[in-house]
């Protein structure tokens, strides 16, 4: 990885830079979706890319998510490397048939003849007072789809390298970007082209008391909780999964075995959420090391509330993580 020169960028800028580099490096890369061309996307992630790379490479599509996913599948079949944007992850639902029946299945049902190097980018999650349906976290549905990978970065520097790796990957990758981090997260981002490996979890902080496990927009929440706990002398380990599929189970189990306590944090609804999968794997792989039940801090079993005044009660925050930590420690 080239890391000599860095600048401070936010997530939007880092992802824009990754797309720009990918378009410049590989003529097979195409960027498309609703409003990504002249407008530069509703979050301006694709700003300037059409002007620089032309309307053939960066283009607006009709407003139809299933059509966009279908188009991406066909383009990939024909040898292109499509990077499709879905305006909000909650808008993936009209395209689920394309995703479940085809995008995830083509390699398998063609016995390896048709691989689909498609990247689907979509903003997800809450915390910024969006209208109805704009704050969903549908990653569990995607993770339940064999044949696709799911990547959720937690910082601008990681987002750039992971997106470039996703575009290079020979399999379909869902790349979910936490809306809360788009302009909220700023970090030193290396210049130039670099990739970060998919399928690796990261240990961001180490402590003996418990292990916090999460991804995307929950990473800053876990770090904040860890900081507060640390001031009271309770040091915790924080694991950023980064790639949900394929899951780096070993890193998770190792971290849990070292602390004996695990708390999984995710902002999707609790039941059947990806955190439930992580908890189950801990039960299967590290039960003998556990000193407390694995706890989940998650959204409620209800649609994400579009009501600004109480939205913060749905989305996990550091206080809720700390409450779970106290519960685990006093078990």
């Amino acid at each position, binding site marked *: 990885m080239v890391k000599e020169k860095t600048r401070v960028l936010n997530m939007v800028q880092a992802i824009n830079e990754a797309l720009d580099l990918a378009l410049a490096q590989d003529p097979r890369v195409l960027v498309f979706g609703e409003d990504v061309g002249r407008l530069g996307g509703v979050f301006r992630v694709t700003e300037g890319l059409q002007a620089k790379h032309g309307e053939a490479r960066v283009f607006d599509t009709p407003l139809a998510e299933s059509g966009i996913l279908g*188009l991406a599948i066909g383009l990939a079949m024909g040898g292109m490397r499509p990077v499709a944007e879905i305006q909000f992850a909650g808008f993936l639902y009209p395209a689920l048939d394309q995703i479940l029946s*085809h995008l995830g299945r083509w390699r*398998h049902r063609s016995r390896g003849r048709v691989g689909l190097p498609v990247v689907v980018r979509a903003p997800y999650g809450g915390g910024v007072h969006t209208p109805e349906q704009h704050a969903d976290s549908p990653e569990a549905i995607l993770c339940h789809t064999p044949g696709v990978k799911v990547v959720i970065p937690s910082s601008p520097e990681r987002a750039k390298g992971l997106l470039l790796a996703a575009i290079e990957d020979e399999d379909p990758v869902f790349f979910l970007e936490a809306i809360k981090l788009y302009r909220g997260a700023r970090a030193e981002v290396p210049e130039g082209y670099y990739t970060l490996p998919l*399928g690796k979890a990261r240990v961001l902080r180490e402590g003996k008391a418990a292990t916090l496990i999460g991804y995307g927009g929950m990473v800053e929440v876990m770090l904040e909780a860890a900081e507060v706990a640390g001031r009271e002398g309770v040091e915790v380990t924080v694991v950023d999964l980064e790639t949900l599929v394929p899951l780096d189970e070993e890193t998770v189990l190792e971290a849990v075995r070292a602390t004996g306590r695990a708390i999984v944090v995710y902002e999707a609804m609790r039941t059947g959420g990806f955190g439930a999968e992580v908890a189950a794997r801990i039960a299967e792989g590290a039960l003998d090391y556990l000193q407390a039940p694995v706890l989940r801090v998650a959204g409620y079993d209800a649609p994400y509330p579009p009501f600004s005044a109480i939205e913060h009660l749905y989305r996990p925050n550091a206080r809720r993580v700390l409450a779970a930590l106290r519960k685990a420690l006093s078990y």
Partner: protein
Amino acid sequence: MKLKPVGYLERGELPLEKGEALRLYRAMRRARFFDEKAMTLQRQGRLGVYAPFMGQEAAQVGVGLALGEGDWVVPSYRETALLLTRGVPIHVLLLYWRAHPAGWGFPEGVRAVNPYIPIATQIPQAVGLALAGRHRGEGWVVATSIGDGGTSEGDFHEGLNFAAVFQAPVIFLVQNNGYAISVPRHRQMRVDYIARKAEGYGMPGVVVDGNDAVAVYLEAKKAVERARKGEGPTLLEALTYRLAPHTTSDDPSRYRTREEEEAWRKKDPVLRFRKALEEGGLWGEEEERALLGELEEEFARELALADSAPEPRPEEIVEHVYKEMGPDQRRAFEALRQGLHLEEVW
């Protein structure tokens, strides 16, 4: 807008050169031969569920032969005749209907993708494949096909709209066989001709007598030419009828009459075309016998190939999910390879 089905055979016309006409007939006869054999094999328990296409040969072969070598087909599950025209070997198709993994990956060089089971979902994909050809400067044309019921699906509309907006080189063949399994056309839509819908997207719509191989072939050739010249997509509606059940598990006597079937049997596209060839002095009893002999021999050879395909290995379950197996597939692969259950090795 007035629509009238295009047809030639009723008028006793055969505006084709001899070689072209015979090529068309032979391909149709070969497809019919396959369909009859497949039905028999299924009844013997030697194929799984099978979706026959008998009656729709003219529509499929007409479009298939109108394509060039570099063009692609993106078929639905009833388009076995279309796949045969593209060079998918018979034993591969038999293995497909045996649900054998070796029937799932068509050989390299065959420009056809696996049949689609979900209805109309292939339509936007066909558009993407067509655009990929444009981006790569290879300019291939894509023919994709569904039935009348498929035009009620959202993906049909999204796909046609995308194709028109991007002026994609695609031919949308709708085989209007009158039924979506048991639901008749008038419970599916309130228009007389599906081709009429094309105008709503901004593309030409053509309705042809789908049991008239000449009509389908000539109209498909026009659509291919238009697509190749960069003039965009065409919706081609072939009015036809499936003479057999929806699948081998279906009972059409519950939803259609014997009289209706008999009426369509009189328009059997294979017999109809053979008659036209014979009247034109291009075909006779002797040629027919020779062709059937050839087909019998070819089928026997291909069936033997299908029969000799090795039993699938258990670990094939988790192969080709990703280009490289992730940790979860690897663990399952090892368990299956050793004849163990996943729970035993976890």
